[in-house]
């Protein structure tokens, strides 16, 4: 036997395919799980799940969870947690409601005020965490109580609404159709097509770059299969939505956020620094990274996304209630962890968190249609969280 041979050399083709599958399985495992869950409920609900109306509903119901999960992902990657997002969302929704209903402030201005307010709240919490070294768990636990209390005070225990239609459209509006076809929303189809082509192009470009610099890439077959699958799914979804009212406004907002944050985390210096900080804060600081400022900004960002979530919740219900957003911090945190984020920081992806949020969303929706009570829904969701993370931990240990 010669010395220093690498594994790859004495592998049979069968082994390498198995290895490849194993390596990629982890990356796509939650996506596969999502598809499996969708298929399961599609069957269980006799096809109701994927009906255009329900699919649209699903997006509307879960948009704010996805949005907050993106912010939470950054917080978790940075090595922290934010328990206050549900209360912050409710508080911002309440302020927006009071401004619109009691003071007749223009809704666009209200949206801006709401986002700024969220940022300020995030900054306040971030200050305690980053500069006064209060553990984030405690600082945001305090925030959770404080802002729930302030919401109650602001609304004086009442529900405040309804809102101007312009504001409502934030959650319940749809993209206008420029083609004016009767039964099919052509604009939505076109957008779906453009998006899927863009994804394929970017993936192909990334692959070409890797080849150019002599890196190992996944086999062409897998690459093609993956892209065909993604394109098919996007086109099918947009077709389904097009045959109802088209693409909802929130979906567009959501899409832009996902792309922007995926880009931020993968491609930018600041994104890279957050991962480094979460992985080893001391080493990051000694590499010239201003870890305090970065932590602070991560919470400002979380505050703004929580505010956006709060505005969407209010718009969707067309009323601000003291109990709005109660408990959603748990859904949001669960989404990030189901999507593969590590509780010790430094690991996690935006796409993962989105998939995690969708897993939660589809389960909520599917179980409701099937008629499972809210009590059992909670229990089942808890178990899914546990198993998802268990699966992730195990696959990580094996690799």
């Amino acid at each position, binding site marked *: 036997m010669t*010395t*220093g041979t690498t594994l790859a050399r004495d592998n049979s083709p069968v082994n390498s395919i198995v290895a490849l599958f194993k390596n990629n399985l982890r990356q796509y495992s939650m996506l596969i799980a999502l598809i499996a869950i969708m298929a399961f409920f599609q069957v269980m609900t006799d096809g109701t799940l994927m009906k255009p109306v329900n699919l649209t509903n699903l997006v509307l119901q879960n948009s704010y969870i996805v949005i907050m999960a993106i912010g939470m992902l950054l917080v978790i990657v940075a090595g922290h947690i934010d328990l206050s997002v549900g209360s912050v969302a409710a508080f911002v929704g309440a302020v927006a409601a009071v401004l619109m209903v009691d003071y007749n402030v223009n809704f666009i201005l209200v949206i801006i005020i709401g986002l700024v307010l969220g940022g300020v709240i995030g900054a306040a919490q971030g200050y305690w965490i980053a500069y006064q070294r209060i553990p984030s768990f405690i600082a945001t636990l305090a925030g959770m109580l404080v802002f729930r209390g302030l919401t109650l005070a602001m609304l004086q225990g009442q529900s405040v609404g309804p809102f101007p239609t312009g504001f409502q459209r934030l959650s319940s509006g749809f993209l206008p159709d420029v083609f004016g076809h009767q039964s099919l929303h052509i604009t939505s189809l076109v957008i779906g097509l453009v998006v899927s082509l863009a994804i394929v192009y970017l993936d192909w470009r990334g692959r070409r770059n890797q080849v150019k*610099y002599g890196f190992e890439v996944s086999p062409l077959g897998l690459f093609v299969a993956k892209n065909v699958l993604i394109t098919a799914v996007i086109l099918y979804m947009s077709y389904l939505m097009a045959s109802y009212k088209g693409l909802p406004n929130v979906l567009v907002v959501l899409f832009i956020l996902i792309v922007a944050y995926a880009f931020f985390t993968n491609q*930018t*210096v600041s994104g890279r620094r957050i991962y480094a900080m979460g992985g*080893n804060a001391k080493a*990051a600081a*000694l590499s*010239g990274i201003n870890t305090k400022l970065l932590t602070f900004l991560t919470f400002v960002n979380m505050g703004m996304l929580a505010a956006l979530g709060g505005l969407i919740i209010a718009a969707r219900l067309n009323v601000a209630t003291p109990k709005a957003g109660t408990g959603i911090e748990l859904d949001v945190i669960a989404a990030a962890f189901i999507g593969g984020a590590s509780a010790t920081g430094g690991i996690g992806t935006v796409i993962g968190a989105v998939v995690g949020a969708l897993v939660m969303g589809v389960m909520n929706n599917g179980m409701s249609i099937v008629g499972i009570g809210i009590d059992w829904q909670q229990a089942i969701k808890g178990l899914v969280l546990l198993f998802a993370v268990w699966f992730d931990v195990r696959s990580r240990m094996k690799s």
Partner: protein
Amino acid sequence: MSSVILEMRNITKTFPGVKALDDVNFSVQQGEIHALVGENGAGKSTLMKVLSGVYPHGTYTGEIYFQGELCQFKDISQSEKMGIVIIHQELALIPFLSIAENIFLGNEQAHRGIVNWNVTIAKTQELLKKVGLRESPNTLITDLGVGKQQLVEIAKALSKEVKLLILDEPTASLNETDSEALLELLLQFKQQGMTSILISHKLNEVNKVADSITILRDGATIETLDSRNDLVTEDRIIRGMVGRDLTHRYPPREAEIGEVIFEVQNWKVYHPIHPDRKVIDDVNIHVRKGEVVGIAGLMGSGRTELAMSVFGRAYGKNISGLVCKHGREIDTSSVHKAIANGLAYATEDRKNYGLVLIQPIKNNVTLANLEAVSGRAGVINKPKEMVVAKDYRTSLSIKSSSILQETVNLSGGNQQKVVLSKWLFSNPDILILDEPTRGIDVGAKYEIYTIINRLAEEGKGIIVISSELPEILGICDRIYVMNEGKIVGEMSAKEASQEKIMACIMQQQEVAQS
């Protein structure tokens, strides 16, 4: 009399993409000190982890016979029961527990789950006496220096009935005196009939205590030398390790030294937690262009604290003094500013302060200088980053499956090279290297010295902090001696010797005592 106590046969261990051990045979005689040497990443630690059950039976192939019995350990506790105890390369003590608590961690002296502290303390005292450590059993680990911590590790090993003691680079972070004491201890244990395996990159130590020496290279056994009868020279060992002769330990250099480019003046630093304790006391040092300056001193003499406080006030409180470059004061009030002003500091503690272990080599190399691989909008140019990382991987010969390998899975020496790469890539004018060759094999040391020389030739100023006096003497142009937070001596390399440096330290200690 020489009966075989341990025999490892045809051990092969693979990690994804790497064959760390390839059909290794290794046998140890009863009652000897057996040294295991080899380059970084040769597989020494891995072999010992296989032996001690860190990598359980089934994750490797081959057979292990201990005292003639076939062993298939599922975890460490099983190997410990047989009397095989390993002290890992990285110390594994819990800082905020006491010596006694650490020693009996997992082996608590308890009856029905209730700890008997009297027995624990008594036994600890006995063990501490055996290893020659004069400390109270109740002292917290965090209050001990590394040398003493290492002794606690050994005491912990002794608390389990040990027949075979494995020490993975025990002296890597010890100074000469502490190392000496530890080796004495090993010899003493040998007298009492204990067998030990010693992994070390310090070949003089190996020569001093080992009865036989096994050399690993690229995951395979090259040879086992018997140093009981005939003397095995260090050069002979090196030849086995690197596969060729290494005529010089230090690369030759024509120093071309220019004007003073870096100065630290009247530097005073107080302890971050005990603000009335002065850690650095009025230090003045300077570095000239193209000069390699050494700072010698004992562990805890304040060298790391000096370096870290200068480097962006990363250590200490109430810091006062001036830092000047080219005669002008520069702002080093944050690490970011220090780097921007051309400073770099490669830490001695790579795991805690040097690397983001869960990230690949690539990310670690570029971490301190991401600007150089990104466009104006702060978007990282990934292909460029890859090229940079690949260059460093090649030029520093970082042994790894690719630049995407997570640094946690690199061997100790190769992790050190990643830390160095990071700071080389930040392209500093002044480079402070804190124990740059700790845990690094002779061949790689030579490479690092060559890099240091190259940087000096480029006109940079280099400060090397090292506890290995031969190294300081071998590569530096000028040497400062530090003790208890003060500079207690300065000499040119020509007039310096180990004795002179030690004399400086001792003299100052006597002054302090009288």
